[in-house]
């Protein structure tokens, strides 16, 4: 077979497999429903009209075509043909699948005990409500059509006139940006700063009033995770200690707020602000106590021990032994909110401002620390602890300091979180929450403040945006997490400091540069 053809069949086969997986989990129906919704159907049926499923088939075909046509510098016809082959091959696989489904349908075999979605109606819908033979043929055709379309799109994108047009556009943008940058020199730079800061301030003041309680809640959670992420970034990003059970400090903050400021179990009712301060302090002390015995550990050993610490805190909070003191699995509710100048915080908007304040405070402290003498000491420890110690850096003290400050950030976030929900329980502080925080700082870009904001959006905002995908949302989230890492291994907005590698391996074990034989 000639290589060009083989090169097209490979992406076709990949998309074919993806399609088969989609059908077996019923994802094709969801995509069709979304298509129907976009085109104005208010309440689409569980099995939407065939035309939307056809749109799904074409989309998959386009995907195959684009995949096959990429990285090819050939003339239009060849690229379109490659797309057609890829789409067609995927279509043939889809057709084979539908052939199998049709047999299941006609012979009335019950496979739903294993593969739950494959009901008779579902299979009929997948065959566009047509006769099996017809449905299979239409599928192959639609895939091939989509593939050709995809190939053509790529070819058009790569074509000389379009690229020239694109380049002109880019050059124009570049020029205007340069011009604008020219303006931002000198005095005007100050002006630009003032302008952007005031724009930001305006947005911060007015946005929470307008975007409704749902987005206030979701973005409030994102904001708290920014604080949490900055805290973890001090430990992981700045000083290079892999802490996995970070949510434990969050839990300590939340429970301090809860125990000191709720009617049950103690009825202390200290008020929000003292409880907040104590929560932050207690979290910091916990960081110190955890850090003391662990300063000899590095890398993954530290990770598992902190993970263990997080689990210990969670299990103790819900255990029978401490139920009388912590409320056990039931948690603590009716946690009071803050009051400023006699005005109680009641609405989502109030809390949003509080969270924005906490975020700004955390960002300020973080950036001051990063650029201070302490920050440089952390950098030295992160790059090579042994060398840092040899050059006179008190590694133990600085590592402890990082853990303590990071824990204090988490305590702050936890206290606000508990007060905002008016409730906290042990299951709030599970391992998955710790993993989320770690993921967000890596996805965003280790060590950078905008990266942390971006990562918090990706980790806490994305699942909310993906609610349209119903039960498939975490599936999509997992796949996107992998895809984000594959496409941006350094995170969205990496820190401008030199790239870091937690230095636990000797140099000799690093991957050689020229080992890629693929």
């Amino acid at each position: 077979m000639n290589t060009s053809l083989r090169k097209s069949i490979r992406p076709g086969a990949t998309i074919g497999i993806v399609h088969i997986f989609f059908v077996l989990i019923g994802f094709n129906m969801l995509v069709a429903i979304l298509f129907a919704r976009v085109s104005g159907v208010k309440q689409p049926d569980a099995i939407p009209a065939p035309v939307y499923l056809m749109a799904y088939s074409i989309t998959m075909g386009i995907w195959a075509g684009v995949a096959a046509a990429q990285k090819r510098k050939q003339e239009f016809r060849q690229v379109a043909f490659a797309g057609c082959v890829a789409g067609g091959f995927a279509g043939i696989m889809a057709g084979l699948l539908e052939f199998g489904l049709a047999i299941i349908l006609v012979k009335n075999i019950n496979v739903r005990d294993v593969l739950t979605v494959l009901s008779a109606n579902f299979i009929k819908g997948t065959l566009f409500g047509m006769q099996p033979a017809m449905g299979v043929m239409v599928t192959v055709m639609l895939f091939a059509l989509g593939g050709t379309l995809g190939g053509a799109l790529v070819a058009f994108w790569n074509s000389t006139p379009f690229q020239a047009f694109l380049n002109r556009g880019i050059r124009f943008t570049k020029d205007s940006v340069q011009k604008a940058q020219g303006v931002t020199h000198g005095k005007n730079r100050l002006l630009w700063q003032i302008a952007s800061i005031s724009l930001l301030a305006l947005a911060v003041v007015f946005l929470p009033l307008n975007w409704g309680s749902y987005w206030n809640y979701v973005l409030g959670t994102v904001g708290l995770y920014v604080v949490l992420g900055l805290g973890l970034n001090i430990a992981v990003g700045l000083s290079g200690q892999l802490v996995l059970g970070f949510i434990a400090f969050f839990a300590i903050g939340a429970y301090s707020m809860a125990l000191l400021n709720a009617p049950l179990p103690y009825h202390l009712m200290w008020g929000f602000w003292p409880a907040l301060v104590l929560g932050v302090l207690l979290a910091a002390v916990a960081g110190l106590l955890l850090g003391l015995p662990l300063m000899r550990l590095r890398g993954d050993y530290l990770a598992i021990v902190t993970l263990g610490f997080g689990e210990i805190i969670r299990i103790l909070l819900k255990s029978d032994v401490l139920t009388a003191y912590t409320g056990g699995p039931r948690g603590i509710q009716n946690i009071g909110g803050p009051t400023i100048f006699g005005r109680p915080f009641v609405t989502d908007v109030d809390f949003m401002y509080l969270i924005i304040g906490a975020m700004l405070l955390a960002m300020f402290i973080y950036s001051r620390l990063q650029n201070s003498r302490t920050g440089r000491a952390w950098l030295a420890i992160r790059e090579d602890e042994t060398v840092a110690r040899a050059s006179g850096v008190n590694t133990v003290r600085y590592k402890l300091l990082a853990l303590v400050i990071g824990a204090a950030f988490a305590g702050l976030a936890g206290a606000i979180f508990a007060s905002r929900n008016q409730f906290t329980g042990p299951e709030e502080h599970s391992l998955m929450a710790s993993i989320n925080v770690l993921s967000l700082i890596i996805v965003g870009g280790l060590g950078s403040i905008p990266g942390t904001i971006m990562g918090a959006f990706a980790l806490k905002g994305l699942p909310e945006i993906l609610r349209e995908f119903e039960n498939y949302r975490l599936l999509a989230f997992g796949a996107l997490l992998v895809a984000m890492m594959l496409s941006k291994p350094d995170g969205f907005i990496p820190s401008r400091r030199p790239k870091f590698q937690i230095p636990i391996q000797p140099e000799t074990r690093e991957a050689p540069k020229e080992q890629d034989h693929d």
Partner: protein
Amino acid sequence: MKSLKFVVVLVLVSILVTACQPSAAPSQAAVVSGAPDVCTSDAFGCAVFKPGEVVKLGMGAPMTGGNGSYGVDISQGASIAVTDAGDVKGWKFALDAQDDGGTAEGGASVANKFVTDPAIVAIAGHIFTDATRAAMPIYEKAGIPMLSPSNTVADLTTLGSAVFNRIAFSDTNQGNAAGDYLFNTLKVKDLAILHDGSSYGKGLADTVAAQFAKDGGTVVATQAITPGETDFTAVLSAVASKNPGAVYFGGYAAEGSILVNQMKQTGLENAVFFGDDGTYGVDFLTHVGANGEGAFATIAPASPDSAAKTAFNAAYLAQFGKEAGSLSPYTWAGYDSAAILANAVKAVAVVGSDGNLYVPRAALMAAVRATKDYVGLSGTFTCQSNGECNAGLPQFVVVQNGAWVAVQ
């Protein structure tokens, strides 16, 4: 500086994103011409539906993660109820089931989503206690009634909430009855208590232990297991050394059936297994097989196989490819909760002179709480003023010859 620029861009993008969202506040101010009078007098105003729109019931349930089967199952049961409910004066019902992961954070975020959707009139849920606790104050502010099929924790109905109702037993009700039954009818003197460490299981187990001790029995062991694990032989061996006459378990069928099986290997062959409404169901029977003979569970008193239930089971199997009750014990409760809410909506909805449908929110809250003698698939329900809709005594069932049989 660069980071500042970035934040500026980010804020602008978020303005755009949120601008594209449908505007927030639910359409409470129904001062539209053509609105019926009831809307102006209603404390929370009316939800308005133009012809062709759908009346939505919300549900917050864990659809993913370790407890995913509960949410998937209950929402599937409720979706059949929504279909069965037909229409209200020509407007169709729809179920909007959202994943709250069973956590407080998820519950609050789903609740906030629902209160910003003007088409949501009532909530069949939430399913897990943490989510419910965080969601309650949010619905309270918006005047959206809840009817939980599965929250049993005792204090939920003592908080003075105007919106929270449940058709599940309260722990006090079920736990006291179980404690009495164990001591008085089964003549158990030494009881071992196990629970799964959840607020449901522990709440129930604590009540049973207290009642049993009050009756004069001895609680010889109290232990908790970790849900999601599958080997409990160690903890059962420790319990066996105390020679209890019965083991009360507060928790769900998944762990309950493992316990029943492993009791036979750990020296608890002769102890009675006494479960709760979470261990009832066909799922339990398939997992325990012959080991389950003589195991107890709790249900609400209802004719176990009414015609409606048979029809529902058939519809569930046809639509979802699984036996009803094979994913969780709460399938039928999920159906009932959505059906009761749909009934209440039908009772209060009015068509205005402009041809729109109006659902007065405060009146709906009252209507849900006024539910009386509703015969559902999982029991007969009459709501009290605190939102307790299942105050009757529970019915105990025991496994005999591989089937659940009611006992007196």
